[in-house]
């Protein structure tokens, strides 16, 4: 059975989309087109997003819609493990965030208004990518949402430094090992005692300048489906580390053991395995840094251009740590590579724009492939990287189809 993506209209016809959304969305949130035109969209989201799942909501962004240097809020992908809070808070300023854990002697609670008043605000453009972005290509297939290339985006986030808040809460730096989060989303089963997801990052990552407790995306309140009114943002780590609808942060004196930290979730085999292998939980290691990667966002795949004309190629490249230093393109399946122009990142963990003017030798079918290299000389592979049971970390080169005719 081929996994053909459905158009939105087919999707609606086949699945009764608005109804499922209506059942899982907060009261008061209106779905566009629910009663009138049969053309619904996710609240606050671009209608061009590809909906992979409606309960929980998971949607990715086609590459050509990610062409902006700063990703618009309505174009940022959605990867939810549970159901967004039943009702957005009447007064977001009264939203509370508790700081606790073994390495916090006395738990402290801040309201969102207090966070905004007490701490210095910072804005960074941070690349957020789902650890499973690209899962769709793995064979044997991995369980989970079959992301193609669109679980990625790089908006500008505004909030306070996690470090500043942890320091104000009096965390003990000599005991702190890991930072975990809890949020106010609901488990799919509806069981209020079940934690949807509770992941986090090592303390060293938590203390970086760019590690934010954020309330704004591109100067506006966060979209509901992306964590409104408060979330964590850690650039360069799997997006699942960046907890949404943030209600509590725990500074642990050990590796955080929250939901989806253990087992096989967000982990890859500690040593390489053959495709399809069964790997024991004990042999799976937590994903921390995301690999170097790039995406062609212009033109949209499928462009047909006249012979003798040139193609303006554009896109983004990103890496979890040091900046991307080089992006190249190939029109002959990697036999030869040409350099792209590459802009520096506006800050660490922001994606960088590449561009090139591409000429084609003769009419016919071409694929334009892009390949990024980072400062540590890590290069994107042209084929799929190492197979892993849950299909994470696919950073294979992106490509588009072009015809000269």
């Amino acid at each position, binding site marked *: 059975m081929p996994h053909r993506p459905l158009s939105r209209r087919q999707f609606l016809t086949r699945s009764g989309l608005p109804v499922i959304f209506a059942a899982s969305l907060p009261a008061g949130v209106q779905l566009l087109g629910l009663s009138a035109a049969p053309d619904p969209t996710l609240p606050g989201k671009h209608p061009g997003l590809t909906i*992979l*799942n409606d309960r929980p909501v998971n949607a990715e962004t086609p590459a050509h819609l990610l062409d902006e240097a700063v990703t618009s809020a309505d174009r940022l992908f959605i990867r939810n493990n549970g159901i967004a809070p039943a009702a957005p808070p009447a007064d977001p300023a009264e939203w509370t965030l508790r700081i606790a854990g073994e390495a916090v002697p006395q738990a402290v609670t801040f309201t969102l208004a207090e966070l905004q008043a007490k701490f210095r605000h910072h804005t960074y453009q941070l690349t957020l990518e789902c650890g499973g972005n690209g899962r769709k290509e793995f064979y044997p297939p991995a369980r989970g949402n079959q992301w193609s290339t669109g679980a990625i985006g790089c908006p500008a986030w505004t909030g306070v430094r996690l470090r500043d808040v942890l320091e104000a809460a009096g965390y003990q730096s000599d005991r702190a090992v890991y930072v975990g989060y809890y949020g106010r989303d609901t488990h799919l089963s509806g069981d209020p005692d079940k934690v949807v997801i509770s992941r986090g990052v090592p303390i060293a990552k938590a203390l970086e300048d760019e590690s934010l407790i954020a309330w704004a995306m591109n100067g506006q309140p966060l979209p509901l489906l992306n964590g409104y009114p408060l979330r964590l943002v850690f650039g360069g780590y799997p997006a699942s580390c960046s907890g949404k609808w943030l209600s509590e942060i725990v500074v642990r004196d050990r590796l955080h053991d929250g939901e989806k930290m253990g087992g096989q979730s967000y982990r890859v085999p500690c040593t390489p395995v053959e495709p399809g292998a069964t790997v024991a939980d004990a042999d799976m290691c937590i994903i921390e840094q995301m690999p170097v990667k790039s995406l062609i966002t212009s033109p949209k795949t499928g462009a047909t251009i006249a012979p003798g004309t040139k193609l303006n190629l554009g896109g983004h490249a990103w890496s979890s740590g040091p900046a991307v230093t080089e992006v190249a393109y190939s029109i002959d399946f990697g036999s030869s590579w040409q350099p792209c122009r590459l802009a520096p990142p506006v800050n660490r963990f922001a994606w960088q724009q590449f561009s090139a003017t591409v000429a084609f030798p003769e009419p016919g079918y071409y694929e334009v492939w892009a390949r990024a290299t980072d400062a540590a000389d890590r290069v994107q592979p042209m084929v799929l990287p190492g197979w892993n049971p849950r299909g994470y970390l696919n950073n294979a080169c992106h490509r588009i189809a072009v015809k000269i005719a």
Partner: protein
Amino acid sequence: MRILIVFAVLLTLAYSCSEDAPAPAIPSDPDRFVVDGIDTLTGLIAQGDYLLVRGNCLACHSANLITQQGATAAGWREMIHWMQEKQGLTDLGELEEPIVAYLATYYAPVETGRRRPLGEVEWYRLNTDQAD
């Protein structure tokens, strides 16, 4: 009218997901929702025991979790056991075998190798006069 029927059925599904819930009632004439071999209520392929899947799986999650996925019988069984261990799915008893058989038959993995072809490209004319 049609949307109301869909609403009623799916609301039943959406609210019946709990550890004790019985399988949702199946409409007496399910075939009227089948168009071109697809169950339009869910998107499932309307063959074999699809009603068992609709009744037992879609109480808790969307059919998209099935239709976007391919797996062998062993793979589907492993996912069912994972849902039982982690997500509160009940023991399916004698229904497990026909459910796994349906999934492995109609949602089998597709061999794609290390890189699949780009596939169905929607071609369009791009004006490149502006290129330098």
